[in-house]
């Protein structure tokens, strides 16, 4: 229980050393003290905006996971879908945010929807790709068994391949949990007036490194919390799989 705090202390010490002696000027890397001060004085502002980002992360992660899982199941269920959907999924990952942002706003407006959509776009792919890989890697013996049982493809997918692929889905979820915060930040790119991403972009544009890093610290706390929560949950749920 005490270890995270040692890590944290070490981290801050390193940061402090880098800021103080590393030749990194404060406008690039403000000192921990300055950031701590910003954290304290701007706590309400940060808390409000963190709430917004948290909501985006929560919705984005849930939506992205559901979407990614469905996409993987769809692709796994039907070779036709695979042929058509998979390239689109891959392509979706290659579109830079500034190409997509105007279209998102055009279709979804400036509200939460467009932000969540962007976040989901970032989150869903690791889920899809990993889950799909898992679905494809079903033990051949089980599939043979299912064949002799006259199994229906749908049930084979849902009751055999799906549970067998859960550890792979878990890997995807872990990656998704780690990229979810950046997904939400990218979502705020489409035009926001609140959220940690907005705070950071704003502070960055107005050269307020201490505020920017304060927001970054909050974001990272969210990221670590999220990852740990997802990791713990997965280990609990997948106790039958080795190494969990």
């Amino acid at each position: 229980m005490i270890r995270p705090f040692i890590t944290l202390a070490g981290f801050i010490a390193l940061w402090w050393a880098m800021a103080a002696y590393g030749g990194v000027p404060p406008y690039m890397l403000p000192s921990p003290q300055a950031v701590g001060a910003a954290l304290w004085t701007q706590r309400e502002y940060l808390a409000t905006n963190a709430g917004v980002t948290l909501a985006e992360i929560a919705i984005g992660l849930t939506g992205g996971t559901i979407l990614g899982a469905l996409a993987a199941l769809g692709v796994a269920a039907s070779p036709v879908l695979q042929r058509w959907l998979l390239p689109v999924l891959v392509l979706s990952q290659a579109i830079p945010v500034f190409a997509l942002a105007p279209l998102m706003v055009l279709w979804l407006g400036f509200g939460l929807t467009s932000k969540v959509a962007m976040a989901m776009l970032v989150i869903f792919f690791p889920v899809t790709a990993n889950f799909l890989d898992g679905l494809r890697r079903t033990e051949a013996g089980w599939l043979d068994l299912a064949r002799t049982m006259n199994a229906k493809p749908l049930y084979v997918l849902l009751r055999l391949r799906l549970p067998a692929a859960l550890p792979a889905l878990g890997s995807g979820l872990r990656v998704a949990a780690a990229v979810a915060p950046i997904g939400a930040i990218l979502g705020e790119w489409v035009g926001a007036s609140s959220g940690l991403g907005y705070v950071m972009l704003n502070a960055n544009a107005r050269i307020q490194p201490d505020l920017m890093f304060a927001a970054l610290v909050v974001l990272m706390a969210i990221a670590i919390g999220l990852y740990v929560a997802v990791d713990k949950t997965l280990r609990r749920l997948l106790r039958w799989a080795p190494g969990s």
Partner: protein
Amino acid sequence: ASAQSFTLILDWFINPDHAPLFAAKYCGAFARAGLDVKLIAPTDPDVPPRLVAAGQADACLSYQPQLYLLVDQGLPLRRTGTLIDKPLNTLTALKQSGITKLADLKGRKIGYSVAGVETVLIGTMLKSVGLQLSDVTLVNVNFNLVTALQSREVDAVIGTFRTYEDIQLAQAGLEPVIFAPEDYGVPQADELILLSAESKLKAPALAGFLGALREGVAALEAEPEKMLALFLKDNPSLNDKLDIASWHALPPYFARDPAALDAARYTKYRDFMRAAGLIKKDLPLSAYAVQITA
């Protein structure tokens, strides 16, 4: 009757450049005009005009050079107002790097944020002192102009504002050497203008908005400190030395009559853009700028 909603997309994050808009709100001008004005800050200054053209908002803030590019590409947009009617943009170097006159930039690195027209601006400015674009190295430093300059990654940057970054550099104890484009062969331009979609030019809300904005400028001039206090209350994260200094430096640059159109200035700048090859068409004034009368 309930107030009519009017959405304005800003050019960038909320900053003291937008003071007249806030002043118009604080002095009740928007309410008197029957408008419920919503301000939205984008993260990318290139996006707002497209959204306005697509009907997602009633107006947006943009820059005069940008206007020509937009209209040349066929976007149904018009300049309908002016927020800042003098250039703010500068080419800035640091005295510390031994640059005192523009010609000293020969062989140096110049940083910029991609906005489309930088190369032409720099080229024009260099030409006025007998240099060419090939005499310098251009580096895209994206949104980190000041940092790039401070860390000496580049020797000069273009795109800094005399009412913001140049103040900031001075506050950081550096000695900025400032070159204004209009002193080196670039025509005068409005820095911050208001764009609306062609289809919404006749909307009474727009005229009302411009009228209210004019009241805002006057209110700001009358009670700058009171307006500043309200502004900082609304935007507590702007409560710092730099933004307050900027707030005080800006008033001379605001357009007294936002609706007024300086036709000669717009035509001259169009010729400049055309000569530089940035636009392909000989756009008539009415194709890109109008004066709205209430």
